[in-house]
Every structure is written in structure tokens, then in C-alpha cells.
């Protein structure tokens, strides 16, 4: 994909630097969605290519980040459709989960990172997308709704379910971390 990127640049000139500057952001989101470094890199590359070809569609420079993420969402959905013949996007957005281990007890920073990633990967895709856009990139609910082309109410309910599920999945981690400051009621 690097070659593609170079060739496109050779043929058409460099990307607008502002779009290229969002590469780390896009990569972080893509990785949080798919938990596969190679696929995330592909998605980002594909997104930047599409963004370049569609650059005339971007009216508001301030909306660049949201616009790029919305393109990446389409790339990601396309990828999933190619991978599996999903009939109905709505169905799998609520059910598809990555196959990873459950989070276990952990104490080091690396283990926390691993546990959180494993827990996020267990969330249904739709919830995972909303959660990562809100928590990693501070997108507002309305922005997320626009990016993912879903109603704001769906954004809120998915976020709520995602956090509730994470809370349960990460209890071994947070329980240990918070053991010093919070007391659990025992009856």
C-alpha cells in the first residue's frame, strides 16, 4: 500500500498536508475498530486515497477530521461486506464481535492496555465504533451520528450499552485498581 501511496503522489502530487496530518488519528480509530494492525493500515491508506479523489466534496475545512472518519467508515463497511456476505448491515452491527480472549486479572500498564483492547474487541461493532469515536477522539454525539449515518439516539444508546458492558468486562481490572479508594458493600 505504501507503493500505491507513492505512485498516487507521483501522479497527482502530495495529499493536502492537513489530510495527511490526520493519519495517526485515523490509524488509532481503525485499529480500535478492527484490532488488526495490517488491516488498520490498509483502511487508513484507502481512506486517504479516497479522500484525495473526493477532495472537491469537502466544503468545510473544519470538518476534515469527521469527513475522513466517515470515509473510513465506508471503507470499513466495504471491507466487511467483502469479507462476509452480510445481508443486513443493521443485523451485524449489533452482533459482530472480534474473536479475542476475555480480559483477565491484570496489574501492569501493559496488561491494562491488553485487557481494555480485548474488552473493546468483544463489543458489537456498532457499539465499538461509537465508543471509540467519543472516547478516543472526543467527537460530539451529533458528529458521530453524521459520521456513522445513524440517529443521535442510536449513538447514545450504543454508547451507553458499550460502557455498561465494558464496566462489567473490566471489573477485574478496575476492581483491583480502585481497591484502595473504594469500598465494596458486603452484606
Amino acid at each position: 500500500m505504501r507503493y500505491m501511496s507513492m505512485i498516487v503522489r507521483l501522479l497527482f502530487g502530495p495529499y493536502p498536508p492537513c489530510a495527511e496530518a490526520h493519519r495517526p488519528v485515523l490509524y488509532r480509530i481503525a485499529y480500535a475498530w478492527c484490532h488488526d494492525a495490517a488491516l488498520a493500515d490498509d483502511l487508513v491508506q484507502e481512506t486517504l486515497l479516497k479522500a484525495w479523489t473526493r477532495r472537491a466534496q469537502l466544503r468545510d475545512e473544519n470538518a476534515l477530521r469527521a469527513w475522513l472518519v466517515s470515509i473510513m467508515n465506508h471503507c470499513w463497511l466495504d471491507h466487511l461486506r467483502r469479507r462476509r456476505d452480510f445481508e443486513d448491515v443493521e443485523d451485524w452491527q449489533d452482533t459482530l464481535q472480534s474473536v479475542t480472549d476475555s480480559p483477565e486479572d491484570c496489574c501492569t500498564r501493559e496488561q491494562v492496555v491488553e485487557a481494555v483492547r480485548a474488552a473493546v474487541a468483544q463489543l458489537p461493532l456498532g457499539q465499538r465504533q461509537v465508543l471509540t469515536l467519543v472516547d478516543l477522539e472526543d467527537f460530539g454525539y451529533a458528529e458521530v451520528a453524521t459520521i456513522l449515518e445513524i440517529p443521535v439516539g442510536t449513538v447514545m444508546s450504543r454508547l451507553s450499552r458499550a460502557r455498561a458492558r465494558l464496566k462489567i468486562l473490566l471489573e477485574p481490572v478496575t476492581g483491583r485498581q480502585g481497591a484502595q479508594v473504594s469500598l465494596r458493600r458486603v452484606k
Partner: protein
Amino acid sequence: MNPVVSEETLHAFIDDELTVVESEALIVRMRNDPELAQRVCALRTLGGMIRLAYTDPPVVARRTQSVQRQQLARSCALGCLMLLAGAGGWVARGLEAEAPTAMVTATIMPDAARAVSLVQPADPDRLMLHLDSDNPARMEETLDRAEALLGAAASQGRSIQIQIVLNSQGVNLVRAGVSPHAWRLARMARLHTNLHFVACSQTIARFHAQGQRVELLPVATQVPTAIGEIVNRLQQGWTYVRV
């Protein structure tokens, strides 16, 4: 007021989706409801853990390309070669744009020389920042430092408590109508339930004696004396930093 605050409302609060009025009402409620404050704190901790988990996503080292891409790459290669001859310098310009974006990780620790603690090693998660001046630079430094510490702790998934202790002219930081940072303080208090501002009552009494009217911003509470507060907290294992 509704006796139970819904999870959705708390989510909207930590995501900055509530109106200022709604947020402030919730902040007031949290002050009197430790369980509610704890729920907000837990949600923030969760958010911090998620951010921590994806601060440094693994970078792909080497991978295979799909057949489709290889074909596309090959078809583009011809055009590429033709252009190469005439556009060497311009090409180099295009490639330069690919400089890796450095991830800047801020590591802010309290100034060791100015930190005092009765325990060894000093607790980095319970901090008093003491300000006794209304020098604009020092006021700003205090707030910057508190924000940096809270931000660093959140990104590392740590739970931290910060108390900003104000006496003498430092009290001006939280005086309504006097503080140049009223808006920033409100914002910080809204974002961080584990940040507290306390002002010395003796100082306030002294201001009153001088005929000054002292009204504190809602974010601040009074303690009998700043020095007493500092000594108490030091004995409880807090770390003291004079700004």
C-alpha cells in the same frame, strides 16, 4: 429534582453534551452525593483506560499486499516511470511529506525540588498545589500544572486527587469578580471531580477587615486556615507542592 441520575445523563455529562445549566446542577448534586461523584469518577476512569489502550496502537512492520492492489500498483507504475524523468525534484517534495508524525507524550511530574511529603516515596496521586500570590504567571502556572497532572493521570488510567490551597493574595484566584480565570475554573471543575479549590478563611477575614467584599466562586470551599489544611493533609500522606 429526579432522585436518580440516569447513566445516560452521566455519560452526556462526561462527554460535555449537557448544557451549562444542566452540568452545573449536576456538579452541585455531586458535591452532596459521594455515590454520584463516584459513578462519574468511575466513568472517567473507564474513559481514561480506553484512551490509554489506544495511545500507542501497534504499528504494522511488514505485510503482504492483496493481489488487487499489486495489479493496481503495477498499472500505475508505468505512468510513474514516465513522470519520474521530468519531475525528479517535484517527486522528492512529495515524498518529504511522509515524515512520521511524532507522538508527543507529556510527562509532567511535580517539581521534585519544591515537593514535600512525609511519606517515602512521595505519593504522586494526592497532591496539594499551594498558591499564595496573585501574580498572573503563577496563577496560570498553578492551573496549567493541575490540568497537566490530571490529564497525565487520566491518560495513564490513574486516579488522582488534587487540591489547590490558596491563601494570602492567592485567594484572588477564586474570588468572584476578581479572578481572571473564573471561566477556566468552572470548566476544570466540571471536567475533574477530583480537583478541589480551598481558600484560607483567615485570609478572607483579613480582606474583610480591610473593607473588601469577598465572594468566592462556586468551585471553591473555605478551610479554617491554609497552613492547618496543609499540615493535616501532609499527615494523611499527601504531597505538597508550592507553586
